[in-house]
């Protein structure tokens, strides 16, 4: 019988497992700080997520531990980190789905703030500015008394589906290409382009989108490793979106 089983199986009242967290600690602001793994032990609670576990550790064991969170419900995308080496949202990961030994590390690629906290916002802003991820509408006189042009419900659903991206950065951290080539636009960027390509209010043509992603740091740099697709916490159809964009952009180039 393993220790895990011994811990969970006891007579009468169920005893919870004792979890051991191995957390990467590093403060880039402190010249004396060196990256190291620090271990914390915590008794598992019913329905415990990694976010709850981290909050417990910070509250009762180590107030210096840095990690990000806002919504606690998988909507803001702040708490993405490497969970046992794979990117995921801490607030959406239940400890019961993991072994008792859990390793946590910050997402690679993004600027490290400290411990598990990374500046995904800075990277995402850079990506948004580069790909101009906003509706490029025709310049026309604003007429507030005129009704907006209706959008087909099916199309609106399709756009909404891609708009579910929370920019958590998991797809970038899961991408082998992004690890090697820091200028690679990543699945999040290509998904954005695919989203605005669908939008009828956006006047940009495929030629315009080619200017944004038609090179080796854009869609042609993607090696179809599909770590992004498999890891996306929002389960976005990234494989099909990237393939769709690749076909469109290849057509422009030929």
């Amino acid at each position, binding site marked *: 019988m393993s220790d895990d089983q011994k811990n969970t199986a006891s007579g009468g009242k169920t005893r919870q497992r004792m979890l051991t967290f191995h957390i990467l600690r590093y403060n880039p602001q402190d010249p004396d700080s060196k990256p190291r793994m620090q271990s914390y032990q915590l008794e598992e609670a019913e329905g415990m997520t990694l976010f709850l576990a981290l909050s417990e550790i910070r509250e009762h064991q180590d107030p210096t531990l840095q990690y990000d969170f806002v919504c606690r419900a998988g909507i803001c995308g702040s708490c993405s980190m*490497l969970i046992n*080496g*794979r990117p995921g949202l801490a607030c959406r990961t239940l400890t019961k789905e993991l072994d008792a030994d859990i390793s946590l590390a910050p997402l*690679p690629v993004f600027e490290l703030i400290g411990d598990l906290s990374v500046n995904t916002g800075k990277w995402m802003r850079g990506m948004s500015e580069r790909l101009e991820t906003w509706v490029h509408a025709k310049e026309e006189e604003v007429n507030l008394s005129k009704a907006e042009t209706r959008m087909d419900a099916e199309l609106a659903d399709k756009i909404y589906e891609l708009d579910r991206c929370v920019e958590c950065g998991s797809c970038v951290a*899961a991408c*082998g290409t992004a*690890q*090697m*080539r820091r200028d690679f636009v990543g699945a999040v960027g290509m998904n954005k382009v695919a989203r605005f390509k669908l939008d009828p209010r956006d006047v940009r043509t495929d030629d315009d989108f*080619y*200017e944004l992603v*038609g*090179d*080796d740091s854009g869609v*042609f740099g*993607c*090696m*179809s*490793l*599909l*770590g992004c697709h*498999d*890891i996306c916490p929002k389960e976005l159809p990234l*494989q*099909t979106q990237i*393939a*769709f964009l*690749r*076909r469109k*952009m*290849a057509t*422009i*180039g*030929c």
Partner: protein
Amino acid sequence: MSNETLIIQAGLSERPRKSRLPARLDLLQSMTGLFLALFMWGHMFFVASILLGKDAMWTITKFFEGYFFFGKAYPGLVSIVVAVVAVVFVLHAMLAVRKFPINYRQFSVYRAHAKSMRHGDTTMWMWQVYTGFLMFFLASAHLYQMMVWPQAIGPYGSGGRMWVDGLWPFYLTLLLLVEFHGGIGLYRLAVKWCWPNAGREFLKKLKWGITAFFLILGLATLGAYIKIGIENQDKYLNGEHYTPAWVQQAEESAR
């Protein structure tokens, strides 16, 4: 110096219009890969004709040498086909090498990433790089040999090459490299362009099935050539070419 050269030198070549070349290169990489993978399927069936007997392999060989069209064998025709394949091969290698890790940082960061991700498609890409890199040398050597000595292809010639010339470890290695690289490459093409629009799990199963099939066929074929090589060492060393009995009879009666 042309105006265009000056603009490129100033690092402003991509303005105001981005080059269409990356799109074409990406498509060409996929197309050359597809061509080579499909060629290797055909190639495997041709060389595996030895499993049906020496006569079958002789017939296939002579078919490509134009024997049944011109009444005489022209091994030079094989050289032409090999030259075309070699050009596509070099083109594919040139395009694919753009994706390789180009320094130790890229290599080590990818390796660490693949190890921690425990993600099949990510790990398979490393194998594609390793097998592709080795094929720069092994496939080039094979293509050169076939292009320069196409007349050496035949039951005795190919068998002797395996055993008497001791090239069977070379071909065994090449077989493994081709099957793994080609299999992963075809799978990658399907997911990259999303055609056929099938599920990844199905595509992966199909990929491993195809790889296993060609590996088994390839190993059996290699074994058959080695056996013929062992049994006909003297004939190979005497420079004798295999000729089926029915051809010998026909030639004798024609005289």
